[in-house]
């Protein structure tokens, strides 16, 4: 019997149900995350990657809800849990860190108290013991002089330090999964590298699996074991890190990779993908990337492409790929 994966997301669809009616924003997203591994969700802004992450813990913004699909943490479906059950999982078995470490920390509480809160909530610690443990956590995430930092308020720390505090909060209860929603986007580059290294080290020490959300292939290539590329609410290509980075098949993935600056290429100007991601109400009936795709053919704008297994680990959804693959298989057959 196969071992149950740590986290298995199946055909997850997310929508917003407000006065203007229901809008499907994320459609049929599936992936698995194994213990100690890092899966990266990549895509432009507005492609639904953050929403997917928030949906896992049912932390969607108002009016957002899971329309269908399941999110199984070791076989237990989070999507069908009630609030009380979810509270036992949030911050305990699955934690999150966010893009803006300034606004994500409560301005009126010292950072030590905010780290200690997770311990009080989940480990049933007394306040004093939790505060002591919090100082230890702050030390673990590389904050110098943690005892005196613990009584500081968020505004007294730098951006990098704040993100370290967020990581300390998230990892205080040694969760199985850490969801990191663009954790380095708001930081400058040298700090980015430090935070990524820190996450990497902690992952090795604690065996935490990471769901890493980013739009930056440069960052993703440092972190990810597996990558899922999202476009307009769907996963259009997924595979191992080397599948995606070295052998991208979907035209969108290829285009996105070309927009990432490389140290070994000398270009006057980085290519950009023309146009924008269509909003959830304006998605074309066929492949959503077709209007921006340089190799699109007729059927691209009419029919949704199916997901196609290119190898054991590599999946992509593209008509062009489909036909060429079929040609290949005809030739071989």
């Amino acid at each position, binding site marked *: 019997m196969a071992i149950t994966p740590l986290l298995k997301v199946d055909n997850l669809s997310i929508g917003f149900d407000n006065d203007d009616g229901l809008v499907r924003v994320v459609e049929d997203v599936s992936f698995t995350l194994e213990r100690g591994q890092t899966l990266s969700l990549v895509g432009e802004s507005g492609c639904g990657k953050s929403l997917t992450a928030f949906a896992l813990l049912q932390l969607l913004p108002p009016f957002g809800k899971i329309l269908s699909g399941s999110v199984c943490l070791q076989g237990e479906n989070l999507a069908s849990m009630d609030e009380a059950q979810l509270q036992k*999982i949030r911050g305990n078995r699955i934690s999150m860190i966010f893009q803006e470490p300034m606004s994500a920390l409560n301005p009126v509480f010292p950072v030590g108290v905010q780290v200690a809160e997770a311990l009080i909530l989940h480990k049933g610690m007394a306040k004093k013991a939790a505060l002591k443990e919090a100082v230890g956590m702050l030390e673990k995430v590389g904050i110098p002089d943690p005892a005196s930092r613990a009584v500081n308020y968020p*505004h007294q720390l730098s951006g990098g330090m704040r993100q370290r505090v967020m990581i300390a909060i998230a990892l205080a209860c040694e969760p199985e999964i850490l969801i990191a929603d663009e954790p380095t986007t708001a930081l400058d580059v040298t700090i980015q590298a430090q935070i990524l290294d820190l996450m990497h080290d902690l992952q090795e020490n604690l065996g935490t699996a990471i769901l890493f959300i980013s739009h930056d292939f440069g960052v993703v290539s440092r972190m990810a074991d597996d990558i899922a590329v999202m476009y307009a609410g769907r996963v259009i290509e997924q595979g191992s890190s080397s599948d995606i980075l070295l052998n991208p098949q979907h035209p969108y993935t290829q285009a996105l990779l070309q927009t990432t600056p490389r140290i070994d290429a000398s270009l006057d100007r980085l290519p950009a993908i023309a146009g924008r991601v269509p909003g959830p109400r304006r998605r074309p009936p066929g492949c959503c990337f077709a209007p921006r795709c340089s190799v699109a053919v007729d059927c691209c704008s009419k029919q949704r492409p199916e997901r196609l297994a290119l190898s054991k680990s590599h999946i992509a959804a593209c008509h062009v790929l489909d036909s060429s693959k079929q040609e290949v298989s005809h030739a071989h057959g």
Partner: protein
Amino acid sequence: MRQYLLARSAQSLVVILLMSFVIYGLIGLMPGDPIDILASEDPTMTPEDVAALRALYDLDLPVYERYLNWLGRAFTGELGYSRLFGQPVLDVLGPALVSTLVLMGTAFIVAIAIAIPVGVLAASKPRSALDYGVNLFAFAGISLPSFWLALMLMTLLCVTLGWLPAGGTAPAGSGVLEQLRYMLLPVATIVIVNVGSYSRFVRASMLEVLRKDYIRTARAKGAGQWRVVWRHGLRNGMIPVVTILALEFGSLFSGALIVETIFSWPGMGKLIFDSIMGNDFNLALIALLLATVLTLLGNLLADICYAKLDPRIVIGEGR
């Protein structure tokens, strides 16, 4: 902190001085003076008598000279006599201030004690039945004219049912319960009229706060709804509310003219009104000035509250 308080007091002193001149000037601009009233009451007075009286009381001097004279005496602690009551100004003001403070202070505390939980609950479940109910009640309260509400309550509870006294204060020496019976209606009127807008302030502020990223962080940490709203939300949500309440603080002491008049409550609102209408310069001047002082004090209190609520605000570290 201490230095800050000293600096603020010095600033306030300047404001008070300026305000005293403005108020003095405005009173001086009012048509008629006490001598006119005297003359109209006494048909035997000749214009020469009037002029002589004016000269006697320095009322023929230009306003700024009269002001300087008044200021000089005020600094020696001599605030003059009330023309209407024939008593030193402070003797008249003291009891009125106390009785207004009892009335308005009680109403203020009760209104806040209702508005905060109600506003927070409404904000924590926006668009719920509770939220709509609170909104309806709030707007009803805001829309009710206090004189109408006061009269209706009085008609129902004092006249028809005869449960409560219709006005005035309890006779001297009566028990606490008896005093409360007299306070109930005026307090209720002020509370009903104010609690709506207070709870709307709280609700608006909390709605804003509950959308913040750190609220999402608190949820992601596993905090329950109660903890998220009352621990992570409320302290942030109170910061703007304090501003509004501090502004209200000043009005606590100037009283509620309409409610005090309807319920014959011997407070500041009625006193200020009577003193202005009766050309009681000395009394009106000090009463209005007192309102200024207390408003300034309210703002100072608000600033201290900010620093207590929000660690980003540190007072007394001026550069």
